[in-house]
């Protein structure tokens, strides 16, 4: 059977074994690698909750995209939400990115990541400490978080509720002396409580590419500071776009806030949605897509 990707097994003690993993008290005995093992070098881990808001997805995509363009390998877990947004942003550069799985590196999980994982195995790297063909198990995902932490020079927490599995990665990172970076979020959004709490506890706050560049250099990664950020500042936002920019809103609330007829608001929203200037969320609210998220 010929596969479009390369499989390799790296044992503890092999010269190819990534040295950064040795910081762990229980480094994986064997790394099962699908794709190019050369990508297993310290990079930036971008992690966040599966249930992410537009803001979280946008930030994951924006900062992962910038860091990837600036020369950092993006490490994440291929999970729904922020993880996938980070991987995709890195691939859009295109730049190397590593997915660490809680199942066999040749197993497609989660279901919606099939094409992403296939792409990563072919052009980048998918890695796991579990043998080929291992089924996903809950405990394995908690264990793999320590590999994500150890493979990275710094861990960027984009968005996470409380409690969240994202915290286990941050805990592992702190335990082995990796820097934890966090993006502040709205105090109203339960999805943002995690990073806000981390910042309160001393995590490095990231608000733009300069912050991230400083943090990555402090963590010992070489990045190209002059990389332009892919944020296009829209010259003109309509009244409705401005209203939903920071917090998504429902048509009824929008109509009330703008004291306009709901039918008129629905029509403008429909028009904006058709031209991708706003998007409709699953819960019926409308929001503004983050600029870099649009590459997806």
């Amino acid at each position, binding site marked *: 059977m010929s596969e479009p990707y390369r499989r390799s097994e790296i044992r503890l003690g092999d010269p190819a074994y990534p040295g950064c993993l040795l910081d762990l008290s229980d480094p994986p005995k064997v790394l099962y690698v699908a794709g190019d093992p050369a990508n297993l070098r310290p990079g930036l881990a971008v992690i966040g909750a599966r249930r992410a808001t537009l803001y979280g997805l946008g930030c994951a995509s924006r900062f992962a995209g910038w860091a990837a363009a600036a020369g950092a390998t993006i490490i994440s877990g291929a999970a729904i939400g922020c993880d996938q947004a980070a991987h995709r942003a890195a691939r859009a550069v295109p730049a190397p990115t590593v997915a660490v799985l809680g199942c066999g590196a040749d197993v497609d999980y989660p279901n919606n990541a099939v094409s992403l994982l296939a792409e990563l195995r072919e052009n980048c790297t998918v890695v796991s400490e579990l043998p080929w063909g291992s089924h996903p198990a809950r405990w394995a995902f908690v264990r793999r978080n320590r590999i994500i932490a150890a493979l990275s020079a710094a861990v960027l927490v984009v968005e996470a509720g409380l409690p969240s599995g994202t915290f286990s990665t941050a805990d592992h990172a702190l335990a082995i002396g990796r820097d934890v970076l966090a993006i502040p979020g709205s105090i109203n959004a339960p999805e943002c409580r995690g990073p806000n709490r981390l910042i309160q506890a001393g995590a490095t706050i990231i608000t733009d590419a300069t912050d991230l560049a400083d943090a990555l250099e402090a963590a010992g990664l070489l990045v190209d500071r002059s990389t332009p950020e892919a944020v296009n500042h829209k010259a003109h936002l309509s009244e409705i776009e401005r209203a939903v920019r920071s917090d998504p809103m429902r*048509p009824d609330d929008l109509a009330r806030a703008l004291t306009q007829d*709901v*039918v008129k608001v*629905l029509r403008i*929203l*429909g028009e904006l*949605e058709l031209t991708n200037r706003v998007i409709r969320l699953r819960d*019926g609210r409308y929001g503004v897509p983050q600029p870099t998220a649009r590459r997806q």
Partner: protein
Amino acid sequence: MQATVLTATLSGVEALPVEVQADVTSGLPSFIIVGLPDAAVQEARDRVRSAIKASGFDFPNARVVVNLAPAPLRKHGTGFDLPIALAILTATRQIHVNATAGASAVGELALDGSVRSVSGMLAFVIAAADADVEIIGPSAALRTAHVVDGVRSRRLDSLAQLRTGPLPEGTCVPIRQTEHPQPDLAEVAGHNAAKRALEIAAAGGHNLVMIGPPGSGKTLLARRLPGILPPLSPLERMQTALVHSVGGLDEAPTLAGVRPFRAPHHTCSIAGLAGGGSPPRPGEMSLAHNGVLFLDELPEFGPAALQTLRQPLEDGFLTLVRAEGRVRYPADFTLIGAMNPCPCGYLGDPERHCSCSPWAINRYDARVGGPLMDRMDLVIRMDRIDPDLLIAASPSEPSAPVRQRVLETRAFAAERGDLASKLSGTALLAACALDGQTSRLFTEIARTKHFSGRAVTRVLRVARTIADIERSRRVMTSHISEAVSYRDRSGE
């Protein structure tokens, strides 16, 4: 001595003529019913015997054979009691043959000889009118008989009446045209976007799904749809009343023009929804004929039961095929579904946090199934409204002006052609009459947004109705942009 009395038996919503032949001959006393009677008809023997005796007649001390012709047709129900008793009384010369000549008799007998109503009386009345015979039955069942053109009816409330002279003519009891009060839209505060969708659904006959957390007012709004629909036309009244009569419901409100609103509980079985059983009875879909079928907690209905909705939603009727034959029930209804956004119900709720995983939400959605969702033109999101707004809300528009707009829109649509919800394919495109620029724009959008063929149809149908509301012959870009906001949430 022999005698024949006419009656009928139900098949679907039709009554098929049946002859009851009684033969009373000397021999060992016995009472036999032949001609494919079901259990209820067999039980008629005991009721008929007691009723005849209780009414002061003699039950023949002889061999009594009753044949129900045509013999191959299976006979159901208790409506045969009366014609069997009449046939025996005629055969034994206890009543004159003229008492039942040229008449079809339907009724159930009590042991004391009184005559009781049976369901489906309207069908029997129609069959009698078609056969140009009189109908004999209890006065309670005949009070709506006069709605059928050219029917003559005679009332028989007790077998004993036959001993006192000719039966009284059925008098015309006019159906009271009292307004059956409908819940009013004015009682619902806020929800302007949802009300707009409801008006579009009423104007275009579109099916609608409301998605929202518990207590967001989905049921409240759905119950107000019949109040903004146009009143039933005379033909629709007869169709719907017939189904209700056969289904054992009171047909009087329907005959007064009230649109049916059926809201079966989600434990409803397939037979309960689609019809069935032995003998087959109309299900909720048929009872909602020309009205509204409201399915609250849509994903909680059995998947098999939900899928039975698909064919009637396309065809407007459904055919049950059973071992004993096939029956066809009308089922042309507007489907209103209500569901929670996720299993816990609070996805997107501003106050309560949703505890469902993305997988659980996808699974929940999948329970309704794509093919059924494909038939729902309007999908709207509803949310609980702030109590402050509830109290401070300016008075809402009552149902009457909304209904007036719906009537005017339907009149405009009728002039243009079919209701938008009935259009598809080239007829829909022709009805939309998109101009070159709108058409190009829409094609472009449909491609970039990956609209399926079904999605394009739904958006255009809804856009057509919105254009009807505005009396526009052409569907404009603004109509399409509004229609897009009522799309379902798949692919996000």
